[in-house]
């Protein structure tokens, strides 16, 4: 068996939906853990108390500034992981935790929550609330190919991950408004409807063939913009969709 990569799930202020999504790969999860990745850190799943060295850290949740332990842990994650992935809307963009105002039992003073990119450099974003099992799977496999694959596989994985790395550079605020600023206002929207399909809270509807954003409903997960074919679209990767889909299917068999 080829060498595995080491992966950890680091839990900040999130609802565990991202971890559940990871697990929702069902037998696919076992396949990943059997053949490609050793899980070296994860709440309830791995009996390790302190963030260890690892290749890939999947970080779920935003960081509560008043929780010293979380602030320390996210810094430690950056120091100990080769690749830090913001897993899901909260880690990437703050998501629903942007709306926190404190006052909850049993730590009423905990009131400020920031996406992890506010405190550390992040390498890869997986937006969405919850992020999809398939997107997490694809990133795990591509991370594996990037670190352990042949030259050709490294190139493919690099090309695949590039836009998700660009999202991490783009910034850590997201909103349905991104569709307005970066797609519609730029004269790029062609009315496909992907944004409406992607939104987990149905804040995007299609009126007269174009997206209409109900901003009060938006939880700021970043899925609509990232799913839009006019946010990023790399022909090198997309033209190879059949081969890549087959590759993913094959390795998951």
């Amino acid at each position, binding site marked *: 068996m080829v060498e595995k990569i080491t992966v950890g799930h680091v839990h900040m202020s999130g609802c565990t939906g991202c971890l559940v*999504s990871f697990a929702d790969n069902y037998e696919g999860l076992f396949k990943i853990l059997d053949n490609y990745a050793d899980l070296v850190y994860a709440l309830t799943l791995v009996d390790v108390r302190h963030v260890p060295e690892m290749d890939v850290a999947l970080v779920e949740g935003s960081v509560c500034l008043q929780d010293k332990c979380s602030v320390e842990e996210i810094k430690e994650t950056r120091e100990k992981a080769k690749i830090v992935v913001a897993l899901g809307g909260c880690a990437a963009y703050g998501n629903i935790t942007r709306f926190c105002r404190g006052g909850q039992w049993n730590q009423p003073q905990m009131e400020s929550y920031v996406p992890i990119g506010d405190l550390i450099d992040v390498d890869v974003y*997986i*937006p*969405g609330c*919850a*992020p*999809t*099992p*398939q*997107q997490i799977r*694809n990133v795990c496999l591509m991370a594996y190919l990037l670190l352990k694959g042949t030259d050709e596989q490294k190139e493919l994985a690099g090309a*695949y991950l590039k*836009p*998700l790395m*660009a999202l991490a550079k783009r910034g850590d605020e997201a909103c349905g408004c991104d569709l307005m600023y*970066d797609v519609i206002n*730029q*004269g*790029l*929207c*062609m*009315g*496909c*409807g*992907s944004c*409406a*399909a*992607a*939104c*987990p809270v149905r804040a995007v509807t*299609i009126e*007269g*063939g*174009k997206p209409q954003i109900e901003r009060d409903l938006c939880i700021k997960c970043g*899925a*609509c913009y*990232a*799913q839009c*074919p*006019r*946010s*990023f*679209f*790399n*022909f090198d*990767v*997309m*033209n190879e*969709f*059949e081969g*890549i*889909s087959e590759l993913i299917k094959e390795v998951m068999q």
Partner: protein
Amino acid sequence: MVLGNYKTCVAARSTDKEILKGAQDGGIVTQLFAYALEEGIIDGAIVAGPSDEPWKPEPMVATTRAELLAARGTKYNLSPNISLLKEATRSYGLDRIGIVGTPCQMQAVRKAQLYPIGMRDVPDKIALAIGIFCMENFPYQSIEAIVEDHCNQKLESVTKMDIGKGKFWAYTERGAVSQIPLKVTHKYEQPGCHVCLDYVSNLADVSTGSVGTPDGWSTVFVRTKNGENAWNKAITAGCFETQDIAGVKPGLDLVTKLATDKITKNQKTLEARASFGVGKGLRNPYL
């Protein structure tokens, strides 16, 4: 990548008279979905169905032949078919989805499969993606202006619209035919189409359009294993009559020419966007 990857290309039309009546060209889309539905290759298909307003499409999940037939024909305005992609697996419970769309919509389908960011459990459920050729699309209000102001026809009296031979055509129920040169329609096009670099739905499983073949026939590219599987079975079942594409007029040369023209023109638009302002440009989506 002017014509994309493909395994075969033929001229074809449906052998089903009922489908042909009311189909835009050779009834390829409706026939192939109807067959795939019957054979269990798909559980349903996302198509551009009718709505309350004349010629304004409404995306719908068709799960019967009658629904597929009701969605026949080209509506030259926006039908956001991808908006139902996740919904088709939820409310409709489809495990094998058929979907028809323009080249940009096929791009959206493939992005949803490779980067399923907001598309939980969708990637493995795309069973048959049929792409249609597309030079440009229009907002609904543009079609109103083109048909009512320029062609002088009421939208509700129009039975078919077509683009071909350099003209926009509107056929009415009383047999009148209005035609206007395409140069009149250009200014009404959807702006987002001007950065589009695909004419023949390169990323579809099967793609089809009228250009290249005689009236009533369609040009068909079979592109992927999924597409080949459905297409070959449909041929064996006698769903289509076909002709060698090399033997029909005007043939693939015209398809290649139009595809090249579109890509060249839109590539220029992309370049022009880079220096649109003074020392400032507009975004390039292809990064």
